[in-house]
């Protein structure tokens, strides 16, 4: 039951996506297709690895907070700064993906 539900929700979410993808591939040439592919793959890779990095950072920060509840404010500030630095690398990829997708070359 659970699996059927999951698959059907995924299918629902994928239907408009497939329609757009068909549009994009149909109208453009080879370079456009590769640009879409590169944007999708690159951003997925970046987001996944960023998840790993941010998970480590947040996990360590929570660990430290649990050990020293008195220093929660400072640890939180440091954690936010660290997360922002990790995230900014993904955002560079995001900007590149947006350039690939939307800027006519």
């Amino acid at each position, binding site marked *: 039951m659970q699996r059927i539900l999951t698959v059907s929700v995924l299918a629902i979410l994928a239907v408009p996506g497939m329609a757009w993808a068909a549009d994009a591939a149909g109208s453009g040439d080879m370079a456009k297709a590769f640009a879409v592919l590169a944007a999708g793959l690159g951003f997925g890779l970046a987001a996944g690895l960023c998840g790993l990095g941010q998970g480590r950072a947040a996990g360590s920060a929570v660990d430290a907070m649990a050990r020293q509840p008195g220093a929660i404010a400072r640890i939180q500030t440091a954690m*936010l700064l660290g997360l*922002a630095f990790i*995230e*900014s690398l993904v955002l560079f990829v995001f900007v590149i993906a947006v350039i690939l997708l939307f800027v006519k070359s």
Partner: protein
Amino acid sequence: MELIEHPPILHIPAIPDHILYTWIVMGILVVISLVATRRVALVPTGGQNFMELVLDQFLKELDETIGHEGRRYLPLIATLGLFILTSNLMGLIPGLVAPTANLNTTAACALIVFITYHVIGVRKQGFIPYMKHFAGPVPTVLKPLMFVIEIISHCARPLSLSLRLFGNMMAGHILLAIFFFMMGFDGMLGWALSGSLGGIVVGAPAAIIMVVFVVGFLLPLKILVAFIQTFIFCKLAMLYIAAAVEEAEHH
């Protein structure tokens, strides 16, 4: 992007959108400031109370980051912070544009920070000692190499500062636009209203799920991101200024 993005409500053809909305943000901030300082009382009430609360937070951060000298930079940091926060929050309202979702606005803010902290550093200790600081505490042979690397890293600061804010706002903007598109009349709701069986069975629940998801998860997340990005921007600006000031005290 033209496919999914709705043009903003207020649009003057000759003026780019982000500049128009920057003016609107400026207007909002000026009005709030005027209301707050119209009758300045020792025991604050209403608007003055609110603004004092907000500025107290900035003062606390400044004291914590820069030290006893930090309060001099309150005007710069608080102006940047209030401007960025108001712009970020304005992007949450459908039909309005966040000025910070445009690279020009964020680059302007980042360049102001970049120039300011260099000017502060040069003022504090003179041009030559400040330049010497880029070389760092390494043996003389390595100093030219270190100098070049430091220059590059300092030039990367405004780049990352502006791209971080821009990327966050832009990503949230596109995400919201895609979701509104998917649940709107071109997406699930249109499918549900088209009269086909699949639309009624699948499209209508999907549209409801998306509305719940957007209102319950995406919009709170975007509010959180708006505050955190403002915090990060101001904190990094403070850290850069603190580095420039600290170097002066160190030697």
